[in-house]
């Protein structure tokens, strides 16, 4: 029996790998025939800084009752992420926004989460569970309108130190691209 044990262990390992890969392969085959690609849409606004649309003047109150006026964001690079705890892909992105905030906060990055149609208690639980390190504010049509309309989640706006909107990401966030934009903007002058 003792001699058989390594063989059994290796057989279990091989079976696990086989079952896993087989199910994954089935999944990719199904996905390729049943869904059209869901491509994220990103807009990087080009042109000189003065051609870029100005960001709205933000005056917000977060989940914890903290008031965030325009002075809280002055001279910073700000990512405004419209999301919801009920929106699967939005919730999956939260750890990556947390990582961005942690990585670049000392250089002047501020992430803001604008939650859409979340139950306040569910939102608070989510905030605590993920130990979110950036403010989350409840959204409304007025705030969405201030950004020219937000008609789907997730949507993320990239605001530069010059308080102008440099980018808009619709759908699943392309984090390598947004990371690149953030680094570029953090190194740009304030106006």
């Amino acid at each position, binding site marked *: 029996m003792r001699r058989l044990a*390594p063989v*059994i262990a290796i057989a279990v390992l091989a079976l696990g790998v086989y079952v896993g890969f087989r199910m994954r392969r089935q999944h990719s085959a199904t*996905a390729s025939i049943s869904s059209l690609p869901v491509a994220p849409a990103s807009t990087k606004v080009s042109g000189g800084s003065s051609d870029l649309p100005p960001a709205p003047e933000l005056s917000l109150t977060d989940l914890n009752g903290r008031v965030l006026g325009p002075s809280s964001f002055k001279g910073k690079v700000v990512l405004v992420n419209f999301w919801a705890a009920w929106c699967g892909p939005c919730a999956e992105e939260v750890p990556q926004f947390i990582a961005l905030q942690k990585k670049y906060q000392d250089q002047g990055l501020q992430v803001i989460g604008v939650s*859409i149609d979340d139950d306040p208690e569910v939102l608070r639980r989510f905030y605590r569970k993920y130990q979110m390190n950036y403010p989350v504010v409840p959204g409304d049509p007025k705030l969405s309108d201030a950004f020219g*309309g*937000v*008609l*789907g989640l997730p949507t993320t706006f990239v605001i530069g130190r010059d308080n102008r909107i440099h980018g808009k990401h619709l759908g699943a966030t392309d984090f390598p691209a947004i990371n690149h934009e953030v680094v570029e903007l953090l190194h740009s002058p304030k106006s």
Partner: protein
Amino acid sequence: MNPENFVSRSLILRLSLLAALFAAMTFASAQTSAQRAKSADVLPAGSAQVIQPQELAQALKGADAQKPVVLYVGPKTFFMQAHIPGAEFIGPVSKPEGMEKLRARAASLSKNGPVVIYCGCCPWDHCPNIRPAFAELKKAGFTRVRVLYLATSFGANWAEKGLPVAKGE
């Protein structure tokens, strides 16, 4: 105990634990993938139950008798900003009150008339509203119900394509 036996037993134990852990992780990951595939399968994007934005926009230009009833089953905040002209607000059917409202509205509609459901709150495969709404209307006996295909969102696949929108209630 013979030291060789001890080393061998310890190695076997570690190998077995590693194998079991790996198998469990692979199985869990495969289950998640399978669940996602199942969710996408309910309404395949290219199927007859799905209508493309241009086709719906065209259908809404037709005579009143031919126009489908368009029901919006997503959050109000998006509807207030922009919606398909003539669409009726139902609300998110992933919530019980939204589902109740859908049932109430369905009770007053002809089951043989064309009905289009749409949401566009988030990417197609992840929308929590369109599949339950579609299933509910099919269960109620609607024969010509279709879902508007919005791959990314209502904004990206309808409004930003220049298709008509209305604001407010």
